[in-house]
């Protein structure tokens, strides 16, 4: 087993809910509620979950794009939430974030070349004379043309903009990339292009990914280990093949069976979950999934299951396993 590049320990991120005349805090949205996992060097770790599962917030908190509430995030042994702003800035180029929305993640007033090259300049990683060349290099690496360098973002389609966003990160030669739903805003044919780009880049640059997505098929394609989140907690972590062949948590199973498969001949037995995802401001007691779980027992309503090793390298948080 390779060493861990990123270690997340009991990470919590609560957002206060204010109310009343004086804006007192009357509760918390527990977006990330006690999450621990490790990402090994060179792997692509997938984080899947539905809306409100806290997967995006986890990604953002790991890179300290937002402050944590509790817990720690160690990147190469350094606690990212404890270091000074200067130290964090020094570390930034080696860990990058790729955003979901290719439209709002690019500054509309910045030419592509400036958007990609400015961080190099700001960090003093390249001479002014080099930058243009480096930008063109990374543009072609990401499947864009060198002449795109002087254009503005609005001249590009969604897929191309996502390529620009990727190029902007890659030029800093990062080791670790958090990608937050990078393909969910794109059409299928474009989605495939971007997924392929991600796997090419990983091969060429020996990158480590944290890949956040609601789409299990995308995660299966790209990731080697997968964590499943539900309402701010991790319910299952396993290597890809293990997870898809032998899902242990009832939620994982339901999620897997809910994904429509483009084959009309395939008639599957589907586990249709009852009800809605509860609000993360007011999660159910005990196991958070018990309100929708087809197998829930009385114990599930009272006791919170902990994430434990069910098999070598396969962790699950369920009383019934």
């Amino acid at each position: 087993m390779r060493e861990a590049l990123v270690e997340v320990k009991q990470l919590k991120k609560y957002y206060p809910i204010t109310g009343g005349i004086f804006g007192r805090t009357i509760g918390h949205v527990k977006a990330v509620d006690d999450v621990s996992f490790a990402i090994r060097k060179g792997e692509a770790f997938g984080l899947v979950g539905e809306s409100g599962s806290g997967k995006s917030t986890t990604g953002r908190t790991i890179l300290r794009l937002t402050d944590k509430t509790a817990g720690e995030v160690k990147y190469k042994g350094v606690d990212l939430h404890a270091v000074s702003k200067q130290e964090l800035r020094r570390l930034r180029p080696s860990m990058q974030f790729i955003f979901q929305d290719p439209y709002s993640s690019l500054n509309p007033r910045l030419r592509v070349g400036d958007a990609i090259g400015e961080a190099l300049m700001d960090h003093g990683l390249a001479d002014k004379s080099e930058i243009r060349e480096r930008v063109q290099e990374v543009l072609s690496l990401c499947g864009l043309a060198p002449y795109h360098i002087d254009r503005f973002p609005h001249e590009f389609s969604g897929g191309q903009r996502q390529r620009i966003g990727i190029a902007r990160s890659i030029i800093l030669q990062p080791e670790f990339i958090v990608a937050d739903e990078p393909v969910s805003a794109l059409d299928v044919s474009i989605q495939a292009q971007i997924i392929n780009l991600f796997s090419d880049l990983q091969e060429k640059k020996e990158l480590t990914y944290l890949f956040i997505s609601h789409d299990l098929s995308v995660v299966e394609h790209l990731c080697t280990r997968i964590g499943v989140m539900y309402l701010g907690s991790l319910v299952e972590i396993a290597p890809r093949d293990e997870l898809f062949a032998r899902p242990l948590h009832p939620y994982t199973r339901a999620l897997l069976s809910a994904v429509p498969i483009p084959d009309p001949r395939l008639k599957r037995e589907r586990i249709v979950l009852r009800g809605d995802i509860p609000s993360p401001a007011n999660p159910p007691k005990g196991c958070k999934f018990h309100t929708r779980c087809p197998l829930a027992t009385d114990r599930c309503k009272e006791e919170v299951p902990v994430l434990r090793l069910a098999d070598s390298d396969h962790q699950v948080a369920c009383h019934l396993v």
Partner: protein
Amino acid sequence: MSSIVTETAGLAGTRTGARRSSLWRDTFAKLKKNKVAMCGLVFLVIMFLFCFIGPFFSPYASGKVNTVMINKPPSMAHWLGTDNLGRDILTRLMQAGRISLTVGLAAMLLSVFIGSVLGVVAGYYRGVVDQIVMRFADILMTIPGLPLLFIIGAILSEWKVPTDYRIYIVMLMLSLIGWPELARLVRSQILSLREREFMQATESLGLRDHRKLFFHLLPNTIPILIVVATLRVGGAILSESVLSYLGLGVVPPTPTWGNMIDAANTLIDFQKRPWLWIPPGFAIFATVISINLLGDGLRDALDPKMKR
């Protein structure tokens, strides 16, 4: 477009087609369709040429007193007549326009500069900085602008500030009362912009603050700044005219449109010598209207929701 199938994506042309477009070109294209705004723009250009180039073609020096030709009505020699010191009104109108337009523009530039810098800083850093800047702005905004100007103007008159300096001081005064509103506007823009994903991207890229502020945030407020700044010029010209009319702004012999109207403050001048006050009055009126029309047109052209 018969491009060969390319392996790399995105070479086949972009969504907006072959035409290169930029914000300014698009804006101007939309503005051109707005006839009213274009009239304003054309009039302003003419006014500028009239004021800044016109005097070179005038046979009269603006301050030249001619005791023989006092208060003459318009004639072939003096197209707009002469005033009580026998000065050519047309020439003085041009000279006054220079001052009025310059004061308007300079006051606007200064207040936009102060307002946007303070607004960006307040909006980006929030907390204490924001509190100090915005409370100061609030205080300035609670005092009605004109009375404040009167007071400062009166003090200046007491101190006997040389007339040459007064026009700079008027500019300062006008920008002093102008910046709070702009700072507010910029700050509110920054507050919403800083939540956008591209600002989070700058954080993830580890960019320095000054880069985030002046390369990412400020350029995104430019469209709204331009609209407000344009309308501001009109306001500044009006305020300067009022001050000068009341003798608290720029004082004679330096001419401005405001103090030229002041020359007509006797009943006999008002009734019998309309050539003294109609030309400067019309100049103020038409210039301010043109600026407002242009400003409204710019607002429509720069607002992405107003696609027609």
